[in-house]
């Protein structure tokens, strides 16, 4: 009877390789964040299974978008940390109740909405900042609708990345004109161009690049713009000028 050959060489390497791959992809219980490139559906299933490491990875992926959602909801910079941290804390405790078939951000924002309402009650704030003049509030049936706010947060996060991808001169233009709210004339002077050139050439070109960038990221601008009241837009822009 032939004795079995000892497992060595190729088999051992395969085992080691499998272990390595598993350690890089499978949910671990060590609290170590999983790889950033992990597929979203796999990650969210691991979150729903209660895996702490998967939740940590999800936290890193969604932290900015949740803060943007908290901003859209409250428009209070001094509340962002409390709202976001409390939302993440509750979400961690309730992670096994998450349905991976649902968008994770919408689920988070559902928790955020409860945290926000409690914060408003504790602070004695009526309405919680929902009745506001901002470019997404017009025409909403529920200003705190998680799906809607999630979409806006996604759009703002993508828009931020797109702005960061502009040339330095275009970034200056966006910063001066929109982030700092400077008048067209002042921006034109700083850039050394005619105001008409800025208004009719440079700005449309920058917006065109941003639209293209958003489109690549799967952001459908029409979904947002359709919900906006034209009067409000005119008001906002008129206020700037």
């Amino acid at each position, binding site marked *: 009877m032939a004795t079995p050959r000892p497992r060595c060489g190729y088999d051992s390497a395969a085992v080691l390789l499998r272990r390595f791959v598993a350690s890089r992809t499978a949910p671990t219980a060590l609290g170590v964040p999983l790889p950033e490139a992990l597929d979203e559906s796999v990650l969210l299933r691991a979150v729903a299974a209660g895996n702490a490491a998967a939740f940590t990875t999800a936290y890193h992926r969604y932290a*900015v978008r949740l803060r943007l959602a908290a901003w859209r909801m409250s428009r209070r910079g001094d509340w962002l940390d409390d709202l976001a941290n409390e939302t993440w804390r509750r979400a961690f405790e309730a992670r096994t109740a998450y349905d991976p078939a649902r968008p994770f951000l919408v689920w988070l924002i559902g928790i955020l909405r409860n945290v926000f309402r409690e914060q408003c009650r504790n602070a004695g704030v009526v309405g919680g900042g929902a009745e506001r003049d901002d470019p997404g509030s017009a025409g909403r049936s529920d200003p705190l609708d998680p799906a809607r706010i999630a979409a806006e947060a996604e759009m703002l996060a993508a828009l931020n990345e797109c702005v960061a991808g502009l040339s330095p001169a275009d970034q200056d233009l966006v910063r001066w004109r929109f982030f700092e709210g400077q008048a067209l004339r002042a921006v034109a002077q700083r850039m050394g161009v005619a105001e008409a050139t800025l208004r009719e050439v440079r700005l449309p070109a920058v917006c065109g690049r941003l639209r293209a960038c958003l489109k690549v990221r799967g952001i459908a601008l029409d979904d947002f713009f359709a919900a906006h009241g034209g009067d409000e837009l005119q008001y906002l822009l008129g206020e700037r000028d």
Partner: protein
Amino acid sequence: MQPSDPLHPWLSELGCARASGAFANERTRPVEKDLPWNPASSRGTAGIGLRLVRRAVPVAAAAALALAVLIPGRMFQREDAAVPGTDSALTPLQAAGVNLDHRGADCNADGVVNGLDIDCFLRQHAASGGASALQTETFTRRLLGT
């Protein structure tokens, strides 16, 4: 008014969000212990620290006030305290060797050693016609009653 790009208000909104700190932790990823659900997170620690500080500050202030009031009192008591090995009723002047009951100190012989005796000594000292070292020594001895 020229129709504006509907992207503009969103860019303004993005500027507001950035200014409000919505992107605050975009570049600084928290480590494991700083995660919001971690009890040992820095936020929690900071909260605990703040609570401790809020409770400790009044206590520390009260303690400092008590020390400021009590320590000087105890210092005076210490100055007035009895010298070890002597009568507990001994005053500092007595402890310094000044014998107030010494008859030689009662210069004016009124039965009481007080400031008038000093005037008496001064007069006698002036009448002695000078202030040699010997006279001064004599005056001192008489004043101290030694």
